[in-house]
């Protein structure tokens, strides 16, 4: 991408006015996307983006500039712009010696997607479309999307860090619309991993099409969801986003250090039911939120955030670690070279418990069973969070019965975590997610066993 000598000259330029720390982040990214909608492959898109972001820290201030032009002149110009934050400094030119970092990769890409013909990629879409439409005449619309990306990054900084990573991701999604007497309903299925074309040995696109269609068809019979507080059972692999919102964001050190998290000053304290052990790790083989190095060149972490209900640590990036004298945790991520890194989750999951998941349902006299969630949002200051249910059922007398219409659930993170009263002995990771924070999106994963929240979650439905 760029050689060591050029990186040295760029960092020297960045710090010549007295900047205390500087970093260059180079990114070269290619995407291929194909979209089928309305029965036709509408488009095949190729995308390319390449550039560098340069960051300089001086006192409490971070200067940042980026450029799409990787020529020496342009990089030096960006370095000077970012370095201008150090106005009163007496810097002088320093040369950094880089120590290349190595770390185990969470995956081995068997077949690079770029080595596969576009016609093969497009053919998958038609198979998913036909499978979805074959589920019944009530399926009136189907959309299917294929995406692969290859993101190569280089991070070098004045601490001597020199790290490169090659991140390949593959994604496939299907959505279906069913039309019935009560209007239209939707179904959605997505899979994504940090692997190459071998992805399609692992997933069955036709089954995904059928699943999306059947989800929409089942919802044609859906009743309005209840309104108010209800016991909730969440199926394995569908509710990790609840933890992402209920406490994940609140454990990001940037929010904590500004007092904008309900979990500030809680390390060492009981913040969840003793059943809950929460991990954030980018080392999980093949998972959507994994990588070898984070976007600050730090090796992927495997961090226990909550152990048996006790808060053990927050998640950290370079800036917060440097300021508070804490070790980095490999959670410094950014959407692209045009963005500054900040503390972000990777793959966040709750470890399995000991109870038979069927018994959890049987043991719930009345409540709601959530089979699929659709994202969420949190106010980290209060801990109040919402997450959407896109496939849910009533539980009546310990049995899963009627499908429910879509809606959000709301709860307070610290309370809901304490209220979890049973964890299943099953476990699954959920659908690939994109987490948004301060306008930046990064790929994240989540997972959990089947679990129950008997009190503290309110469903935003319209039924009494």
């Amino acid at each position: 991408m760029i050689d060591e000598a050029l990186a040295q000259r760029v960092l020297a330029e960045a710090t010549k006015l007295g900047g205390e720390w500087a970093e260059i982040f180079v990114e070269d990214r290619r995407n291929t996307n194909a979209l089928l909608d309305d029965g036709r492959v509408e488009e095949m898109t190729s995308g390319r983006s390449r550039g560098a972001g340069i960051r300089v820290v001086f006192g409490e201030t971070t200067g940042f500039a980026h450029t799409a032009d990787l020529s020496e002149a342009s990089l030096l110009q960006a370095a000077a712009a970012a370095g201008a934050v150090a106005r009163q400094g007496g810097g002088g030119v320093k040369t950094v010696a880089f120590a290349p970092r190595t770390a185990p990769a969470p995956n081995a890409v068997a077949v690079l997607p770029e080595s596969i013909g576009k016609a093969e990629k497009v053919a998958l879409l038609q198979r998913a479309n036909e499978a979805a439409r074959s589920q019944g005449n009530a399926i009136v619309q189907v959309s299917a999307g294929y995406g692969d990306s290859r993101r190569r990054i280089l991070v070098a900084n004045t601490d001597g860090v020199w790290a490169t990573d090659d991140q390949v991701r593959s994604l496939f999604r299907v959505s279906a619309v069913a039309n019935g007497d009560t209007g239209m309903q939707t179904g959605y299925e997505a899979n994504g991993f940090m692997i190459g074309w071998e992805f399609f040995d692992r997933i069955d696109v036709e089954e995904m099409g059928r699943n999306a269609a059947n989800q929409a068809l089942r919802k044609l019979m859906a009743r309005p969801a209840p309104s108010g507080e209800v016991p909730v059972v969440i199926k394995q692999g569908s509710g990790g986003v609840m933890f992402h919102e209920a406490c994940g964001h609140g454990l990001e050190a940037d929010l904590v250090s500004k007092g904008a998290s309900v979990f500030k000053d809680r390390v060492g304290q009981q913040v969840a039911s003793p059943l809950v052990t929460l991990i954030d790790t980018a080392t999980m083989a093949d998972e959507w939120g994994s990588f070898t190095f984070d976007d600050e060149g730090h090796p992927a972490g495997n961090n226990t955030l909550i152990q048996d209900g006790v808060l053990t640590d927050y998640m950290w990036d370079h800036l917060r670690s440097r300021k508070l004298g804490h070790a980095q945790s490999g959670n410094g991520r950014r959407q692209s070279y045009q963005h500054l890194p900040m503390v972000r989750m990777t793959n966040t999951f709750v470890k399995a418990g000991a109870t038979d998941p069927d018994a959890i349902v049987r043991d719930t006299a009345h409540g709601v069973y959530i089979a699929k969630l659709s994202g969420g949002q949190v106010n980290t200051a209060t801990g109040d969070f919402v997450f959407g249910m896109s496939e849910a059922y009533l539980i009546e007398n310990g049995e899963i019965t009627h499908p429910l219409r879509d809606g959000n659930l709301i709860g307070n993170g610290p309370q809901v975590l304490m209220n979890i009263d049973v964890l299943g002995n099953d476990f699954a990771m959920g659908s690939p997610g994109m987490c948004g924070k301060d306008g930046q999106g990064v790929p994240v994963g989540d997972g959990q066993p089947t679990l129950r929240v008997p009190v503290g979650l309110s469903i935003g439905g319209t039924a009494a």
Partner: protein
Amino acid sequence: MSEILALAQRIASQAGPGEQIEAMVSTGRRTTVRAYQGEVEELTSAGSSGVGIRVIRDGRQGFAYAGSLDADVVAETLADARDNVQFAEFDEYNGLAEPDGVHPVELDLYHDALVNFDPQRKVELALELERLTLAIDPRVKGVRVASFSDSVGEGAVATSTGLAASGRGTFCYVSVSPLADDGEKTQIGYGFDVSRDPNLLDLHKAAREAVERTVRMIGATKPASRKLTVVLTAEVAADFFGIIGGMLGGDVVVKGRSPFADRMGDLIASPLVSLVDDPTNPASFGADSVDGEGLATRRNVLIDNGRLQSFVHNSYTARRMKTVSTGSAVRGYSSTPSVGCMALAIAPGMMTTAELYRHVGDGILVQSVSGLHSGVNPVSGDFSVGVEGVIIRGGELAEAVREATIASTLQRMLLDVDAVSSEVEWLPGGDASAPISIRDISLSGA
């Protein structure tokens, strides 16, 4: 002629026989200053540019984009777009926009005052906003961030069908998130102001509104579940109408994903609701004289006194529906033209916001919503979002509530609008909105 328009035209002019080429080129520079505890926390200054190329041949479409305008990258992007054509399927309605005789209005969206604004002043604005915010109310204990950001952008579209247009604009924005604390719970809020000219930014308004939104939430509790009338603030109403605008896009209509697809001419909303999308109005921060396909933008009346009057179209959805484009192609350089509203405005009602509270009598003012992406389904119309706000009792604002949801369907909510405030304001997203009240909404709390 602008450099990027010349580049777009050079690309489009490479169309061979039987081939159509469209190029969209954009460039921009932005600055962001973030202040925290009296210091500059972050100072970003950067430029970016990109090109998106669409090729159509034999009814098939290919597309490619790149975040660079280097000659070799542009050539590779055009080659990729041409290559991609063969993998898409034939669609008789595929095609670029054609000149339609509508001339773009002249819009003054570019202010030299921003281009020439001293960078040091940007830093001072962010620092001053933090100071102002901290000085208003002792319950405000800190500020998560106070920021100034601006952008200067230029875009151009050229097609081998004879369209060529470019435009440029300036935009600046201040925002602040105060943290208030009553010893038990921390509350966070936000305030902002927006302008095309940095000298017109009102820091006092941003600080005042931010503090008001934040301290009003102190002591908020979970309300009891019930049905009631909901008042949406202008910002929340804009989110709501933004979703409605999306459901009136030609793309979801032609593909049968809109519950309003077969409702043209019907009363789909309360007669108090009139919704217009007019990107030719320079007061809108979404204003633009041309759309994403190079056609002139125009004033489109979507809902007129409750009656569905028009969908919005790009040239593809217009051809499929045997009508003409409404100049509503929206896109960035990295995507093909979609359909959308750019400057959606609700017509003002007959009463002030204070009068609207009295008209409602008992209800809830919703000042922020969460989970719009997870709990609102624009295909089925199901609507369920988390809310924070203030109870309205006897026509006056009373205690604050949090950890609640409101739910209905989008179709019912439109019909149940029972008042619109006359206090319409332009918002950063490009929309003009005002507080509205909606009857019979389910509030879920304790």
